[in-house]
């Protein structure tokens, strides 16, 4: 069993002479405990798996006194080389580099595993990280299947881990067409002034683009795998298919094996805040309907509409690019009021009303603090799994091309074997979750 660095320090006891990393207690006794200096053992460490796209962004490729980036992993030698160079330039250190993510996950010098691979790996890596005693920072979408999400929730809970899913509009930043943070929306919805049930329209017309350029290509002509790429490891649990550059890196989103196009990539950004302001973090829709051209077996296509209905009648309607409602359409529509793009509202002086209402319940929005205090992050494995499940039941309905009914308690489709077969999809040997 892997040993975490913290355990390692603890077990090492007083044999500190041999260690370069000193336990905090030692520093406490050595001098002024109010000193701002962060003892190395208090400084957390992080490793990133996948340094081709988001993992290399300046948003994440960071290292500071609270958390140090110590390791990177990629299956593309060029990515790895770039990351090491960037590490040298930005932090003046040589990062530990890995080509097999399992080595990073089991590196005792890594506290937090940052999963920045394509989604088909997320579930597997998150579960393995939890089993290795790591806390987890995972890019959206959380998992490619509902079943993988369930496994992540289970492992994170059983192994006592802190998990953060990386989308953030439920707790910070103005999000897309709304021109505001989600908080005033949450207050407005909670106030009941809009009435109930509500319909939320996530559409280009309300400021949310579904990015249909992330569709796949059919009739790909196989090409030789570039020397720098370990394609077999890139695929991992995904079916072995002949290599083509469009399948990997920046354009993988267009293939069902790895993601589900704009729906997969943007879905959780858009839907997660909706779950939050509807107060449905522990709920899921009971029905999903799709209006789309037939989908290909491999390449993700476009769609016109995806409509989710909750048990209480609330709806989320996704409108595909080029199929948006015309004219002025509300983002949120209730029996007693509507909210449009830019937070324009049919309720007069709505901000006055909202300002007098209590703020939403405070949430933990500092991930490193969560790791320290063992409190759940605002967007964690549980609510993250729920919002990702909405994305995934949408992609199941889209692929099958039919209306599906869902049992939120069992997290299973009702009376549809094929849909349920998509909940847990087979993994290519030797991978399993």
């Amino acid at each position, binding site marked *: 069993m892997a040993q975490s660095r913290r355990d390692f320090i603890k077990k090492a006891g007083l044999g500190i002479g041999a260690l370069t990393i000193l336990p905090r207690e030692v520093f406490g006794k050595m001098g002024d405990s109010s000193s701002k200096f962060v003892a190395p053992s208090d400084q957390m460490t992080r490793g990133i798996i996948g340094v081709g796209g988001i993992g290399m*962004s300046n948003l994440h490729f960071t290292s500071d006194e609270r958390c140090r980036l110590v390791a990177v992993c990629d299956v593309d030698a060029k990515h790895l080389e770039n990351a090491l160079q960037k590490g040298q330039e930005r932090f003046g250190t040589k990062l530990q580099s890995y080509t097999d993510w399992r080595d990073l996950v089991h590196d005792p010098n890594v506290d937090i595993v940052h999963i920045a691979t394509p989604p088909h790996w997320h579930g597997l890596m998150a579960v393995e990280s939890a089993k290795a005693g790591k806390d987890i920072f995972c890019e959206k979408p959380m998992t490619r299947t509902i079943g993988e999400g369930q496994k992540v929730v289970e492992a994170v*809970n059983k192994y006592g881990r802190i998990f953060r899913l990386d989308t953030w509009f439920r707790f910070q930043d103005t999000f897309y067409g709304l021109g505001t943070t989600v908080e005033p929306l949450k207050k407005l919805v909670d106030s009941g002034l809009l009435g109930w049930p509500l319909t939320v329209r996530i559409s280009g017309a309300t400021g949310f683009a579904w990015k249909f350029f992330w569709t796949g290509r059919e009739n790909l002509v196989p090409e030789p795998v570039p020397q720098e790429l370990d394609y077999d490891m890139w695929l991992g649990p995904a079916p072995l298919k002949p290599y083509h550059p469009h399948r990997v890196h920046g354009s993988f989103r267009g293939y069902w094996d790895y993601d589900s196009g704009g729906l997969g990539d943007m879905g959780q950004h858009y839907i997660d805040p909706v779950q939050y302001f509807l107060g449905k973090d522990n709920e899921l829709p009971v029905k999903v309907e799709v209006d789309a051209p037939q989908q*290909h*077996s491999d390449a993700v296509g476009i769609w016109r509409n995806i409509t989710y209905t909750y048990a209480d009648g609330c709806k989320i309607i996704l409108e595909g690019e080029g199929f948006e409602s015309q004219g002025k359409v509300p983002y949120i529509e209730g029996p007693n009021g509507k909210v449009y793009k830019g937070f324009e509202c049919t309720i007069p002086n709505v901000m006055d009303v909202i300002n*007098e209402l*209590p703020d939403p319940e*405070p949430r933990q929005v500092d991930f490193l603090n969560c790791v320290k*205090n063992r*409190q759940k992050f605002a967007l964690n494995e549980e609510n993250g799994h729920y919002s990702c499940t909405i994305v995934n039941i949408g992609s199941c309905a889209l692929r099958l*091309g039919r209306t599906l009914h869902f049992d939120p308690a069992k997290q299973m489709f009702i009376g549809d074997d094929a849909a349920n077969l998509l909940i847990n999809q087979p993994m290519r040997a030797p991978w399993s979750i």
Partner: protein
Amino acid sequence: MKKLYSILVLLALALAVHAQDRKNVQETVSDVVAAMPAQNSSDFATLMSSLSAAAPQSVADLASRLKPAGEGVKNAAVEYALQGLAYYASDPANAAVKAAVAKGFQEAESAQKDPYNKQLLASLLRMLGEYSAPQAAPALSLKEAKSLLKSGATHEKCLAACEIMQAQPAKALKTVASALKSDDRIFRNSVLSNATKLLGSTALVPLLTGKYKKLSDDAKVDVLNWFGNNKVSSVATLVNSAMEEGGPVAEAAIAAAGKIGSTSSVKSLLGNLGGPFGQQALTALKSFKGDIRKDVAEALSAKLAEGTDKSAIAGLVALASARKMKEVSPVIFSMLSSSDASLSSLAGSTLGDFVGTDDIARIGGLLGGATEPAAVVNYQNALNSALHTLSPTDKYSRITDLMKKTGNAANFYRCLAGTGTDAAVEDLAKASKAGDKSAFRYLCSIDNKNAAPYLLEAAKSASGEEAVPILSQYIELVKAYETDLDKRRLDMKEALSISDSPIIKKSALVGLMQTPTMKSFLLAGKYLSDPDKEVSYLAAKTVKAIATVTKEEINYDELVSYLRKAIPIFKSTGHADDDYAVNEIDEFLRNVKPYTPSALTAEEKRQGFEMLFDGTGLDKWQGDFEGYTPVNGSILVSAGYGATGNLYTKKEYRNFVYRFEFCFLTEGVNNGVGVRTPMGVDAAYDGMCEVQILDHDAEQYAGWLREYQVHGSVYGVIPAKRIVHKPLGEWSTEEIRVEGDRIKVTVNGQVIVDGNIRTACKGHNVAPDGSGKNPYTVDGRNHPGMFNRQGFISFCGHGSGLKIRNVRILDLGARK
């Protein structure tokens, strides 16, 4: 014998039927494949129902059409059909066909040789199977778990405790009790969380409250966090007293009390506002559910009466202001006149949060009398807030009323500007013109399009740095109010010509991004090499955004070169979405096709023709590059806003053969070819002539167009033979031959003018009597330039909707 015979007949019949089936199946499959992918669910159902009726043969037939992937192999339609069929048959509504289709997939899968196609068939076959819930992962044995609980690493202990509790839920509380004694925060929280999942929060409450006092401070923090997260209202008393414990325990208790929201906690929380965890208490109270206004007002009055605890007062005011508690307003007004400067300024800076329309007069009085700059700003904010529910015109009249009552009108300018009314623009502009700098400052903040011309004028005469804020506001107004896209672009262009500040560049680029036209693209592209990284990044975003959304055609050369320039900019910036931008550009560029430049024919080359415009650029031209833009091989004449000008050759010509092609994009297009004309004049009169380009077939000209105005006419001098134009979008050829006084116009091979201008007007290009009426020209006007010996050749713009290409000339020089 007879028996054998009948068997043979049956067999033959069966074979015949089978053969017939095969043929039908092939036809069905071919029909369906040709219709793939179905565009909607009803087409899908129809197509798949016919395929499934022919299962299992249809599956075999489809599968046999799959080829190993490779150059030129197009499996997609078959793949759509196969997946469609499998998914159709997997629909519970189509259970009747499932067995036959599944059989087909089973056979096809085992018959398939290509491993990848075999894999596809296997994956589809799987979808026709039955769902069975996955087996739960084998848990640790109780013995293993217990030993791991002793010796494992932290996360293993967490697992072990979880498994033990799940195996023996009745004993789970014991595990929790012992975990609370652990000094490992990870373990404590994990056990608490998993026990809650297993037993529900209520079951844990007695244990946690019972043990609370004996816990370490760290464990108390965890338990208090847990109380808060689970909103355990029964523990309010415990939580309230925990606030007295100080340190991290008090901090956790405050947060928990806020989440639990018991009214019994309000006083304790308010009491903490001035303390070391005042910020936490404020956060808790800001989100506290329920009506706490009375408590806040009372607490504030009490603290003010004591007058000592300034931080508590500040905390209470912050809370009251955050939740806009109007009830506190009398206290705040009284604080304004406090002799304690810290109290009066606190009241002043938050006043706006407590006032309504009833307070307008009172605040107006305060503002009129204020002299301290900070107080002025406070009262302005308060007045704006008190007015904010009124209509703009009501706001304006209330403010101007207040202004009349004071000698200090300038204090009100900011509020006046805040009304955004036309009247406010006029008032402020008038005062600015009279030299009132304060009025100008607020003219620069007003949200009204009428302010824009004043700002532009001021920016033009301002010095470098001073112009920046004025232009920024100008750009904001243009962005907000100018709906004509071409005018918006020109306004941005003008702002950019006045200042080269990066602030202006960035603001204008954002404006161009929202103005997705071909010309905005060209303008934004110029900033891709800007030395300021933020500017070049915005330029990259702008060209990408415009290229992907504009409906207008963009010239291939700039389109490709600007987008390629944008790629490294996106790559080097490393924002989260920039990778996607690069991908989007790559995808976009894959679908862009270059144009073929025009070329002289062999005959033209031999004769000595020169190409004046082959599509690649206007380097042989001068004049109005706004109205004449090269786009993919053609000159697009776009008389957008302010573009009605002319395009001239760089060289002057005397005798020549001039050839070009033209095409009308919209009805009624009007342009002309100026011959032997100076620049900047009307070629029809001050040049030798203008050869009319006109869509004379358009409805708008019916009934009144004069014969000397139809296409090809030497305008006002020699009428052309009227032709019928080709449909919109189709190209026509034209040749204009000018030698001495002779002019010959040929359109689409047909000569429509062949005349002599001098004889056409009997030598009188101007009226012999020196008047403006000339009886010798068909339009009755003077044509003073008619006998020019040489001049430029031009296109004379009178609107948009024209494309010109392949412009070439044979210069005949002085030759007669």
